[in-house]
């Protein structure tokens, strides 16, 4: 007998009662309590398949619990606590409700054992998270939110199409490994990789995440892409195309981040890059690679949240979101704690030894090596250079240090962010270092037994070589990297932002004009036909006159063929003609009827 409830429901119920609690303190207490309850719930969830409900002749499975789902379950619950702590000063409780619906639905995805439950939770995720963007309450966030939800709804439709095909073909709604050869599986895969932000279907992520609220974006970094990694690991492990997509992803994000000046957009491109390691690991499909992907998802969620918290704290305090506005303001003097905590996240993402990225990213790279994939290994290696370059060096330099550009642009009210933000960052930073120094708790959670030792001397030295020489190259190119004014970089969202608008204009202007001309031509034609049928004799006479070159007849002045009171046929003729027509029609009809 299982007395516990699905963790998703804890968040859903909490989100429903949160706005109705009296008093600010009560609301804050509940918001912080929900993840704690969910964590205790997780601790008591045994492995197995339970919470099954019959539905339309199928069976819905709300609890498919094994090691793979538990890794993601634990990290989702942990990060929901840290993110809500970061956001606890917000008095707009709708944000908390949206965030908890979002967290709950992603836990629903992680523990769902059938495609229907998966799909429903998948859609709630998109619908709940878009509010975290819209609460930004600027025109940019409204527009970005609309683009975000449209992309995810398209993704949802593609997923639904795949699910329907799958159910029709196999008769089962079970969610497990798919046979990649079928069309259904390909549709489902596309639905999944839209959420995993795999280029060229990734542009929603760097478009939307920087426009969300400061606290909302912290939530968003954790759940959408990583739940997609989970479903990929669950159902498409070992699919070769994912190896290459993942490896390209890692470099794609890195290249765009070099061009970026917006703090959170730069970090968003590095989500694309980091999720690339996980997608690649899932594609490689070996036990070590799946372990690596899961461990990297776990670590990535922690340090990426920390990075977004750090960047968010700067934006919260200064109101500025671009390095071009912040460099040279000597923020390191006013926000040293934020800088230190941010740097822990930056070292983690850059896989500096003793930080958690080092214990997970290297596992994916080593898995590529073990499977003898030299090109993949080098691509992943190259991407980690770019990661340290942008997140570990360029962003902190441009935000906290940097050369003043001649104008005395001190930001006078700058100070450390509110205590809850610092506390959340501190706890996340602690977890980043703790799991980096002592990775055993994470390794024990992983789906397969771990035979990997990150802290081999040769390995550590190689990592330090890579990082220090990256720093040296950064030093040489520092001015080139910081130069340039804020700009937008073209990405695949161009297709729906510019091409889409061009299509709209095309429909509006030339196509509309063409349609109008056709309409006027046809309505003009009918008008002429109506004239002709009113007085065929007159029209023929006028035409005849025209052909012979005669002047217009007096009978029809100025070509008017139906002058008032000039009907050549009395109305009775028409009635008579129609009765005759009906008579002959009836005759023919009856004859046909009797003959056949």
């Amino acid at each position, binding site marked *: 007998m299982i007395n516990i409830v699905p963790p998703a429901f804890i968040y859903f119920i909490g989100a429903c009662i949160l706005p109705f609690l009296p008093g600010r303190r009560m609301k804050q207490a509940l918001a912080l309590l929900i993840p704690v309850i969910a964590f205790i719930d997780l601790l008591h969830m045994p492995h197995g398949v339970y919470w099954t409900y019959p539905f339309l002749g199928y069976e819905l499975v709300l609890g498919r619990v094994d090691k793979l789902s538990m890794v993601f379950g634990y990290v989702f619950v942990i990060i929901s606590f840290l993110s809500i702590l970061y956001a606890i000063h917000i008095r707009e409780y709708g944000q908390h409700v949206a965030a908890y619906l979002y967290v709950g639905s992603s836990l629903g995805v992680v523990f769902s054992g059938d495609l229907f439950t998966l799909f429903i939770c998948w859609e709630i995720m998109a619908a709940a998270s878009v509010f975290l963007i819209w609460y930004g309450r600027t025109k940019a966030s409204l527009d970005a939110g609309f683009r975000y939800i449209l992309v995810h709804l398209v993704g949802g439709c593609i997923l639904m199409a795949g699910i329907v095909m799958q159910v029709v073909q196999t008769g089962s709604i079970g969610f497990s490994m798919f046979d990649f050869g079928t069309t259904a599986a390909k549709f489902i895969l596309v639905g999944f990789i839209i959420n995993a932000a795999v280029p060229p279907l990734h542009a929603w992520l760097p478009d939307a995440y920087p426009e969300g609220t400061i606290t909302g974006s912290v939530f968003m970094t954790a759940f959408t892409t990583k739940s997609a990694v989970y479903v990929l690991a669950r159902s498409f492990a070992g699919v070769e195309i994912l190896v290459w997509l993942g490896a390209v992803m890692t470099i794609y994000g*890195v*290249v*765009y981040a*070099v*061009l970026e000046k917006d703090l959170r957009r730069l970090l968003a491109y590095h989500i694309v890059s980091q999720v690339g390691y996980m997608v690649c690991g899932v594609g490689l499909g070996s036990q070590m690679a799946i372990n690596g992907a899961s461990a990297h998802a776990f670590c990535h969620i922690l340090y990426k949240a920390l990075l977004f918290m750090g960047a968010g704290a700067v934006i919260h305090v200064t109101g500025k979101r671009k390095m071009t506005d912040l460099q040279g303001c000597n923020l390191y003097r006013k926000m040293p704690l934020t800088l230190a905590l941010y740097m822990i996240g930056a070292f983690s993402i850059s896989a500096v030894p003793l930080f958690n990225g080092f214990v997970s990213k290297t596992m994916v790279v080593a898995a590529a*090596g*073990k499977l*003898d994939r*030299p090109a993949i*290994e080098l691509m992943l*290696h*190259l991407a980690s*250079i*770019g990661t340290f*370059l942008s997140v570990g060096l360029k962003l902190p330099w441009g935000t906290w240090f940097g050369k003043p550009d001649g104008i005395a642009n001190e930001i006078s009210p700058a100070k450390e962010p509110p205590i809850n933000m610092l506390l959340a960052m501190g706890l996340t930073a602690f977890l980043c270092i703790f799991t980096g120094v002592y990775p055993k708790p994470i390794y024990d959670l992983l789906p397969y037994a771990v035979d990997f030792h990150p802290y*081999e*001397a*040769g*390995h*550590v*030295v*190689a*990592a*330090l*070589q*890579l*990082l*220090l*020489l*990256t*720093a*040296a*190259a*950064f*030093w*040489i*190119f520092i001015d*080139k*990297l910081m130069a*340039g*004014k*804020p*700009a*937008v*970089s*073209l*990405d695949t969202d161009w297709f729906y*932002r*510019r091409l889409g608008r061009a299509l709209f204009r095309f429909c509006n202007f030339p196509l509309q004009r063409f349609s109008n001309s056709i309409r006027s031509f046809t309505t003009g034609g009918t008008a002429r036909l109506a004239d002709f049928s009113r007085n065929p004799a007159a029209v023929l006479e006028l035409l005849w006159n025209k052909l012979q070159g005669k002047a217009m007849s007096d009978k029809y002045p100025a070509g008017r063929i139906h002058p008032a009171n000039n009907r050549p046929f009395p109305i009775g003729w028409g009635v008579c003609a129609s009765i005759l027509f009906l008579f002959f029609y009836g005759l023919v009809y009856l004859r046909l009827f009797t003959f056949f």
Partner: protein
Amino acid sequence: MNKLRLALYIGIAAVCLLGFIFPYQHPHFWWQKIPVFDAVFGFAGCIAIILFAKTLGHFWLTRDEDYYD
């Protein structure tokens, strides 16, 4: 700034030296047997990424901020 630069130089010299003392224990590819491969790769790779991205940005990707407005 000069102190930081000195520290960087010393650090680089130290890790390159350590590369000879502690080679990879389980090399899968030939380049993992070269003691300073990661140093060279890090330096060249970083420059390559910067130049590649900046060139791409200059000739193709970078547009004015109001491009989509």
